[in-house]
């Protein structure tokens, strides 16, 4: 990731020039460096990927944090109320992610989002087995996980 190294270098230059060796100084330098790269090198193909990805990563982090809080409120509700209406089940989700890193990240994210827990990947890496807390419609649950996967993969590729 060449854009990232350039951005870090610009942030370090900012920190050096202002003499403000703190986390907030580094953050300001990073932001200014990103804006500079975004304005000047927008059309250079080597940097355009990085420039497009940074807002997506920020949005994904907030999306993920919201999912994490929602999942915890739901688990809290489940733990404190009777278990009668739960409909657990295990489904197989076909994977578009292929490398080890992609599959690991996806499985971790699935485990931390509402109502789903990743169990295992098949040996040929075609499917991920996921345990769902409320399995009303298997196809709908699959689509939900595929949507999550597509959001993750557009960041990694």
């Amino acid at each position, binding site marked *: 990731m060449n854009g990232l190294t350039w951005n870090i270098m610009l942030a370090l230059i900012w920190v050096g020039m202002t003499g403000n060796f703190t986390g907030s100084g580094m953050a300001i330098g990073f932001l200014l460096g990103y804006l500079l790269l975004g304005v000047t090198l927008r059309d250079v193909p080597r940097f355009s990927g990085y420039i497009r990805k940074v807002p997506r990563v920020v949005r994904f982090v907030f999306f993920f944090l919201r999912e994490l809080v929602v*999942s915890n409120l739901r*688990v809290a509700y489940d733990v404190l109320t009777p278990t009668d209406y739960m409909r657990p089940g*295990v489904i197989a989700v076909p994977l578009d992610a292929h490398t080890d890193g992609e599959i690991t990240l996806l499985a971790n994210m699935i485990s931390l989002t509402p109502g789903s827990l990743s169990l295992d*990947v098949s*040996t040929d890496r075609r499917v991920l087995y996921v*345990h769902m807390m409320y399995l009303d419609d298997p196809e709908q649950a699959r689509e939900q996980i595929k949507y999550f996967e597509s959001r993750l993969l557009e960041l990694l590729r």
Partner: protein
Amino acid sequence: MTTDYVTFGLELATAVFMLVGALFMLLAGLGALRMPDLLMRMHATTKAGALGSGVIMVAVAIHFGEAGVTTRAVAITLFIMLTSPVAAHVIARAGYFTGTPMWSRIVRDELKGKYDRDNHTLDTPPRYKLKATADESTAPAPDAPSESQPEKQKPDDSTP
């Protein structure tokens, strides 16, 4: 005068984050006690445990207010979020191999019969197999898909 308000606000935020984190940890423990089977217990402990410790780390970062402590708190949160789902996966897998019973009211189990007990490989359901390999495998071993098919059918039939 204003610094009094600031310190009071920070103390209040610390206290609130500590309490919320502790509450989620308590819920994780309660979930491990109350949920009906192993997999559902892992749901409670993975999610509530990860968020609970993360929120407590936020309280720690606010209380100390130093860059060194904050970076360590962020690192701890990240590592817990990376490792707790892996632990859940390994425990669930071990539970499957040792034959821990699932809850009687489970709706669907597509994992059933897919583990090979001898070499610990995990099979893919026939509908998701690669087209090319499926065509190759039908000629030499026609019994392999037909063997896994009724296994997959069983939970579907028992549900209604």
